[in-house]
């Protein structure tokens, strides 16, 4: 036997180098994955960092000067505070407040917050993020001292921009008084309309495609079309919504058809238009997810149904759908959580920039959480960035709970065959 020795020598000769490059690339792959996770962490930390921190407030009127007989503002009774409002506000403004809800019926906390908003009028002079607040406390104090030279009444307070009050207050043009209540309600209304439209249509389409559709050109066209629609950028849906729901169907979407039109919403830029636009947007996703769930139901169940003499619809209704339902619901929740985060189509459809009243019907003007975040982020002043971060936290918690419920649903009802 003359076994060639040279190749073997070469093989072991470069083995070390090959193993080394193997180890290096292993590290590269690992680091890439870690980078992805680090970015996610940075994103969350960045948001939390902006949500808390020092704020230098300037009061329009020093609250101390409003103390009566040595009783500070906070300790005064409701009637004293109401009297203060009557004294300091114009006659018209006071009456307007009283008409909204008589002072005798308001709680003390309510009247107190009115005094703060209308008379004391805090204004944000400067604000700092959490990390700065913790590490540069001395410099911040020095800066505040510098501010005091020009603004006599400056308060430095450590705040959380995300407070229960922030969630309960309607939108306002002042950073200290604004909240996300209108936006949360707008998001919920929009999503409700989206689900009501997209869920039945989507599940119906999925049943048709999986159970009834024969393999012919029309059904192939429908399937291809759905797959392509799922890849259309969301802003295109916004443009479609603008042309179709806001403009062409404005009689319907403004509520004029039902005699419900609010003169301010006669344009059709309403919750209904927004909900319908998002419904079109998530429809393909819901269909594709529901199709997968229906496909996972084993054929034997259908055969058994037919064998017992059930019609096709009876089999689907009583056997296929109940078994596919957890999957369908999970898919729908995931699609809906995508819709909740959508911003671009709603800007195009015409979300309002400033509304301070709660939406009352599908024909109300609207704003949603992502829209609110977009508008606040777009402002240059730091305090609006902090508010945007707080609103992002609200949005993320909403999405997280939706996703968690989807996972729970899947684990609870998932069946194995």
């Amino acid at each position: 036997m003359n076994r060639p020795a040279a190749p073997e020598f070469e093989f072991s000769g470069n083995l070390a180098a090959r193993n080394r490059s193997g180890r290096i690339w292993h590290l590269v792959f690992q680091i890439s994955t870690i980078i992805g996770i680090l970015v996610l962490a940075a994103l969350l930390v960045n948001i939390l960092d902006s949500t808390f921190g020092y704020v230098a407030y300037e009061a329009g009127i020093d609250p101390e000067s409003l103390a009566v007989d040595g009783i500070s503002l906070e300790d005064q009774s409701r009637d004293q505070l109401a009297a203060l409002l009557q004294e300091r506000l114009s006659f018209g403004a006071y009456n307007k407040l009283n008409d909204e809800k008589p002072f005798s019926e308001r709680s003390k906390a309510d009247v107190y917050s009115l005094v703060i908003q209308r008379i004391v009028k805090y204004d944000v002079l400067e604000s700092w993020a959490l990390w700065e607040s913790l590490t540069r406390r001395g410099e911040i104090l020095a800066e505040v001292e510098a501010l005091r030279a020009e603004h006599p009444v400056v308060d430095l307070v450590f705040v959380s921009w995300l407070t229960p009050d922030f969630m309960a207050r309607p939108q306002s043009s002042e950073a200290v008084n604004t909240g996300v209540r209108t936006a949360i309600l707008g998001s919920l209304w929009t999503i409700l309309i989206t689900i009501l439209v997209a869920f039945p249509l989507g599940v119906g389409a999925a049943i048709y495609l999986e159970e009834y559709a024969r393999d012919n050109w029309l059904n192939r066209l429908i399937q291809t079309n759905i797959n392509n629609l799922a890849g259309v950028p969301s802003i295109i849906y916004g443009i479609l919504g603008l042309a179709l729901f806001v403009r062409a169907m404005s009689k319907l979407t403004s509520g004029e058809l039902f005699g419900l039109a609010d003169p301010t919403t006669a344009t059709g830029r309403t919750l209904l238009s927004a909900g319908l636009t998002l419904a079109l947007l998530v429809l393909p996703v819901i269909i594709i997810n529901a199709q997968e769930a229906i496909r996972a139901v084993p054929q034997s169940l259908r055969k058994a149904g037919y064998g017992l003499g059930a019609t096709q619809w009876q089999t689907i209704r009583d056997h296929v759908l109940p078994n596919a339902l957890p999957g369908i619901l999970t898919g729908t929740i995931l699609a809906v959580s995508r819709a909740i985060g959508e911003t671009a189509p709603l800007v195009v459809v015409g979300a309002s920039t400033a509304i301070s009243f709660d939406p009352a019907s599908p024909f109300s003007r609207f704003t949603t959480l992502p829209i609110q975040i977009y508008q606040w982020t777009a402002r240059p002043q730091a305090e609006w960035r902090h508010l945007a971060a707080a609103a992002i936290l609200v949005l993320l918690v909403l999405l997280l709970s939706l996703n968690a419920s989807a996972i729970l649903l899947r684990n609870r009802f998932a069946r194995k065959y």
Partner: protein
Amino acid sequence: MTIQKMDPQSAYPTKAIGLHKRRRWGESAIQSLLFFAGFFSIFTTVGIVYELGKEAWLFFRLPEVNLWKFLTGTQWQPHINEFGILPLLNATLVTTAIAMAVAIPLGLAVAVYLSEYASLKARNTLKPILEVLAGIPTIVYGYFALTFVTPILRSIFGRDVVDIYNTASAGLVMGVLILPLIASISEDALNAVPRSLREAAYGLGATKLEVAVKVVLPAALSGIAAAIILGISRAIGETMIVAVAAGAGPNFTFNPFKGAETMTGHIVRISGGDLSYDSIDYNSIFAIGLMLFVLTLSLNIISQRIVRRFREVYE
């Protein structure tokens, strides 16, 4: 004989127990309803094509606009009737290129790591994290780009080099957004490569890296190419990150540290105010939208074609 006279059909009493196919109206009604639901998506497509086409047609028929200048003009200045889409298209391509420069290498590395290297336990913790990354609303990424990435870029390259609004930061963050998309589709493609190929390569003395890069990756190339094209399509259509971080105002520049408005960013800014119908601005967003729709749709179709045509089928 009576027997001979008997009708042969009567030996099979089909009528008596009704085994023949009966028309059930309820069933048919339900089937038509379901068909309507299925067909509805066709209306959406027709609606998109019709509305975009109609308004874009109105736009191009305006005396101020002509199609040739629209496609080749380097200025988009509605107030002086300059409608050249190149600055918008250019900004879209710059942000997309930056995004893909981040997303392709990182996405592929993550896919290879998850499918070839990671233990089952690591995989089960890492995948959900990537899914979270994919599920974060794009406006949150926009916030992140503007308040985190831009300041970092400015402190590295200098404040006079990097504008507050710039395409680099928008593109980088967009890359992070698209990373999970590319990673998860590519990983599916890598997982679909049969074990026998890997075992054979190991048997020939290949190292783990050689198996991954020289055997598994080429075998999964069609799926990876499809993932990349889908990623590009996603980047072109991405809106909120560029609307927040890339800057307002069309700007024909290749400098990633300058602000420039993309097609999507322009649509959002123009329609942000109360846009009056039949104005030139209103019509122009449909023309841009049509361009966007054609671009993304053709990329999506190419991606589907690649998957279908170049898929390696293993027994």
